[in-house]
């Protein structure tokens, strides 16, 4: 194994684990007010919104419609409360067909 790559991987592993692990050690020392608690509960929703937009539009940077069609298919099925797995498979299938046809 290349020494530089080994150092790179170990370095990345350390700087990635530290932010993940810090709350595990510190959480018992933290007390949250109701407002702070609500803030923490809202983060999943805002984080997911930010993870989806605008990234979904550049799934294929050369073809905007790939992200739009796949995302819309997943969105409609999710609105109808179908399982996440179905949304994912349908979106992949839709994009696959799109690549095949056009």
């Amino acid at each position, binding site marked *: 194994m290349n020494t530089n790559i080994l150092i790179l991987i170990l370095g990345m592993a350390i700087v990635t684990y530290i932010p993940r692990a810090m709350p595990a050690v510190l959480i018992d020392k933290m007390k949250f007010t109701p407002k702070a608690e609500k803030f923490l509960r*809202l983060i999943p929703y*805002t*984080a997911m919104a930010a993870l989806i937009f605008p990234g979904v539009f550049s799934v294929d940077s050369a073809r905007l419609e790939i992200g739009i069609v796949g995302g819309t298919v997943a969105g409609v099925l999710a609105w109808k409360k179908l399982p*996440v*797995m179905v949304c*994912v498979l349908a979106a992949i299938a839709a994009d696959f067909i799109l690549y095949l046809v056009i």
Partner: protein
Amino acid sequence: MSNKNPKAQYFTGVRAGIPVILGFVPVGIAYAIMARQAGFSAFETVFMSIAVFAGASQMMAVGMYVQGASIIAMILATFILNLRHLIMSTCVVNRMKNEPTKRKLLATFGVTDESFAIFTTEKKENCSGLYFLGLITVTYSSWIAGSAIGAIASDFLPAIVTASLGIALYAMFIGILIPNLTHNLKLGLLVVLTAVCNSILTQLMASSWALILSTLVCAAIGVFFVDLDGQEVADDEH
């Protein structure tokens, strides 16, 4: 905290993780193909997935490696991109507060965008350290499996297949997020606000900073107008 027996808690988490396989295996394959093309050996490619377990930063590092970036620069960029896990991990650990620190230290290794999204929108009575460990057993192993498949099969997969898999992660987030919004208009409004905010900020700064900033700012705004009471009761799905 959950009152189910330990085994049941663990396997409820495993079940919740199954959709992530469909998101992680394809992205793992995509990452591994990039890494092999960049000059990483098959072993190095898979070892990075085992040691780091953070897809976006692994892809970024591999991309920087091709451009001849220094090791320090790649590690620093990884640190910045993964700082968001600090917030996510806080939310995750907040739902397993009174459990042993050792368990929390093990569990937080598996905090990713996906495990965080699933765990923090799960019904509160299901949440426990063991549930989370079950969940990340699935996500971690599918990430490693995807990387291994990609590292070995990088030469055989048709381009159309790898291209179609690009939507998988987004479809998963959409599948988790949307059902939470159908009976909470104000939460839906907050999601739209965040989407717009992040789309603008992404034009102005590195996308990892835009993500962190819009997540925090919009959640803070939401505190003043979104009503979360009864949110978990209403989530009869997943």
